[in-house]
């Protein structure tokens, strides 16, 4: 392999790696898949990851040519579809002996697949949070109130995210809006109003990063795992701030 070929391979693997990490795949899978992909393309890959950057060294098996990259991890929305497809791509490259050109073309088609319809997600999340309310013991009114409160909160989140507002601010604002809406159920005098108020913000809880972080820790990628958990914890703090604003506004008369 020539120097240029190795550089090209390193470029592609760096991109593959950063896309996977950016889409919220847990670290050990990313490392394993990138190594498998490198193997299929005839190079050895060594990887170091952290929260915002990753470093990889690609080396030819025969000659002693090395190529090292430090890549920024782009912040894509979490995508399980990329997780599944890009993992499958690494196996396909391994099993079908694909060339770099083929793999790259396949990669480009996979990452440009259509995403989830925002309206679909809006309705699914609202339904999910209403069911969640039920799981916590809410009655039909609490569920209905949670449904529309989640809808307005999640719509706010989608809208602000589209406007590229800082995600901490997005979380605070959407938690506040959702909980303010849910707090109107207090006026109905139903006993489950408190449940509606508490569940209305739970659609924001970053469950995927939390679980990913713990999977990383159990896999031994403890640093990355902890940074993921700390990141998720920051978002939970933001949710609590948003909800506290509501509680301070509303509960002053209650307490």
């Amino acid at each position, binding site marked *: 392999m020539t120097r240029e070929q190795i550089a090209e391979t390193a470029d592609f693997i760096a991109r593959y790696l950063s896309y996977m990490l950016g889409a919220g795949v847990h670290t050990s899978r990313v490392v394993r898949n990138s190594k498998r992909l490198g193997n299929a393309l005839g190079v050895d890959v060594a990887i170091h990851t952290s929260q915002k950057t990753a470093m990889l060294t690609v080396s030819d098996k025969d000659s002693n040519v090395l190529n090292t990259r430090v890549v920024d991890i782009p912040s894509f929305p979490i995508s399980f579809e990329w997780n599944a497809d890009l993992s499958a791509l690494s196996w396909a490259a391994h099993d079908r002996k694909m060339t770099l050109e083929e793999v790259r073309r396949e990669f480009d088609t996979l990452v440009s697949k*259509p995403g989830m319809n925002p309206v679909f997600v809006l309705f699914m999340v609202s339904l999910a949070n209403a069911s969640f309310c039920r799981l916590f013991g809410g009655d039909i009114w609490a569920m209905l109130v949670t449904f529309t409160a989640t809808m307005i909160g999640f719509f706010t989140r989608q809208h602000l995210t589209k406007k590229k507002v800082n995600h901490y601010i997005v979380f605070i604002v959407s938690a506040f809006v959702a909980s303010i809406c849910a707090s109107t159920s207090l006026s109905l005098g139903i006993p489950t109003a408190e449940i509606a108020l508490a569940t209305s913000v739970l659609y924001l809880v970053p469950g995927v990063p939390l679980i990913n972080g713990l999977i990383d820790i159990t896999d031994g990628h403890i640093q990355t795992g902890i940074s993921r958990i700390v990141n998720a914890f920051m978002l939970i703090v933001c949710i609590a701030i948003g909800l506290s604003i509501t509680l301070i506004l509303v509960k002053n008369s209650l307490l």
Partner: protein
Amino acid sequence: MKEIFWNTIASYNAATWPWQLAFIAAAAVLTLLLWFRPRRWVRIAAKLYMVIISLWIAFVYYLKFASAREHSEVLAIFWCMMALAWIYDLVTNFSSFSRSGKASYWGLIVLVLPLAYPFISISRGFVFPGITMPVLPSAVALYMLGMLMTFNEKINFFAYIFILHWSIIAISKITLFDIPEDILLAVSSIPAMVIFFTRSLKSMSGKFKPSDKTVTVLISAVAVLLAGSLLAG
């Protein structure tokens, strides 16, 4: 609780009926202007009107006249949020307030419905001032919904979802406070959900999964579920 509710409405109507007439007149003028002579300043004026009437409901109705009710300040905060939604719309030009499509005529019917509130009350044997008037929260929400449905080229979804939320709150009051007028709001806001969201689907079709048809089915199913659970509740 029911007596307090109707007493607050009566005292509110007795004290503010000239204001209410002014609001209705302003709404009528704005609606007609928007329909026949849609200019930039008319749109801005309409949005300003929405802000003012939301704040009116929040401060004058809930904080002044309905303060005898429990948790009236919660509802006042909610109507401030409604006003915020319109202010946001005003500042960022989020919705266009111009006509398009078929649903316009449905919107006209909805626009007239708030005026039916006093007649429904009178036909149920109530007398002024103890009747529902068009400048009560649910009627105002209904008017806003009518405006959104009529001038629906690009709508203010924030305001719409607030209205949907309000209709759910209002429905639960039907049995609680004996105010069947509010059923009008639910009857119009749930079909509006299907109309608005399928329209917004069409405007971005093709770029997303799952298919538009699946999403439409989901939306309709949710609408049926909502209506069903409202009936059951």
